[in-house]
Every structure is written in C-alpha cells, then in structure tokens.
C-alpha cells in the first residue's frame, strides 16, 4: 500500500516556507524612508537645514550595545533665542527614533550626552528645534564591529 502524504506537495512546501519565515522573526527595520518619516513627524514637514548642531559619535565602534553620543547645538540660550528640542534618529535600527529631548533657556548650554544602541553600520541623524521654529540637523556615519568570543555562537 502506497502512503499518501497528508498535504499535497505544493501546500507542504508553502507551509514549510511559512514556518521558516516565522522562525527568523526579523522585524521590519528602519530604512532611510522611515527615518525621514520619523523626522517629518517631529518637524511637521518644515525644512531642516544642515548646520548649527554637532553630532559627536565615534566613527568606529567596538560594540553596538553602548555607543557614546553627544549632541550640541550652537545657540546663545537666551529667552528669545534658544534650543527647544533635540532629537536623534537612526537609519537601520529596528525603528528610527532614539531620543527626543525638550529644553528651554534655563539649560544654559544646549548639549546632551547619552549612550545608544546601533544595530548595524549606518547613519545617525540629530535634529534640533530652535525657539524661532526653525529646524537644524547634523549626521554621522558609524561603522560597527562585533566583540570576539560571544556567548551564543554567531
């Protein structure tokens, strides 16, 4: 007696392909387009001019889990002329937003530092909002390397 498979061959192949896709579980990562969309959400579509912001991030990083970032904006920080917001975005992380900061003239100096995660070699963009409603940006490219001898074999 010949065994007949429960599922015809083509359906089986589709089922297996579907299962394999589930196992990989790769979230849709950010792309330059989604990063641009995230930036637009902050700027409301207003133009963003390169300049007046400096994004300091090491160009080559030993481990993407804790990358030191400093964002500083050129502003007198007076009541009439100060930074109101600082935002950071990435191009290839699972999602584009990193941090959004609200400041005022009381800051005295528009400089913030933190440590971020980078999923891959990519571009990072800082956007700054001024009290006059204008937006300014800076970008930096970061190359990622991976530590040697990890817990789970890569």
């Amino acid at each position, binding site marked *: 007696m010949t065994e007949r498979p429960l599922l015809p061959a083509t359906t089986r192949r589709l089922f297996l392909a579907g299962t394999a896709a589930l196992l990989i579980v790769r979230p849709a990562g950010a792309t330059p387009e989604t990063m641009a969309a995230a930036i637009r959400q902050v700027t409301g579509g207003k133009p963003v001019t390169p300049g007046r912001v400096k994004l300091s991030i090491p160009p080559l990083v030993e481990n993407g889990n804790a990358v030191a970032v400093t964002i500083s904006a050129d502003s007198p920080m007076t009541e009439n002329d100060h930074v109101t917001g600082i935002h950071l975005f990435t191009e290839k992380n699972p*999602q584009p937003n990193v941090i959004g900061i609200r*400041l005022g003239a009381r800051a005295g100096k528009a400089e913030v530092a933190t440590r971020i995660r980078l999923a891959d070699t990519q571009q990072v963009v800082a956007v700054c909002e001024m009290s006059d409603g204008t937006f300014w940006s800076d970008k930096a490219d970061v190359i990622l390397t991976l530590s040697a001898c990890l817990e789970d074999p890569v």
Partner: protein
Amino acid sequence: MATSARTLINVPPKAKRGDVILIRSLISHVMENGFRIDNTGKPIPRNIITAMVCTYNGVEIFNATLHPAISANPFLTFYTVATESGTIAFKWTGDNGFEAKASAQITVE
C-alpha cells in the same frame, strides 16, 4: 538589593548664581528593546524606561522621551543654569508601571 532601581546622579553641591552646571544621571534598567527572541523562539516583550524628567525646585528643566535604542542602564547628561539653592529632582517612568526617583541638593551663592 534596591527595592526600586539603583540610580547614580551627579549634581554639583555648590555653584555660583548664573553658572552653567553639568548634571549627570545613570539608572539601572535592562531596557529590553522588544525586538529580541529567547532561545525557545518566543519574543521577549519590550520593557524600557520611556521618560526622564528633571525639575529644579519644581520647575521642569529637562524632559527626555526614551526609545528602545537607548542602551541598557540609561546614561543621560545635560546642562542647567544654577539659579537658586534647592532641590534638583529626577523622575524616570517606563513600561509596566516603572517609576524611579532621585534628588540632590544644590547651594547657589
């Protein structure tokens, strides 16, 4: 072990009026980004700090919205003008009702 998250903050104890002072903060938190899967293939749910707000005698001087891309044990520094003596207070909030607080005194001459 701390019942709430362990924090390390640095506020200069003394400053002159008008000085621009550096404030630094570090808090222990896993910042589980929500994109990882465990070794059985199950997604690990997101568990992050989503905000840190700092006040100076009750007035907000710094407000940050954090996303999963902030590293574990979030480290944040910023500046503020030393206006008067008093309390600089930090409050962190996040997923699953997370809340942590810290504060430091500053004497301004």
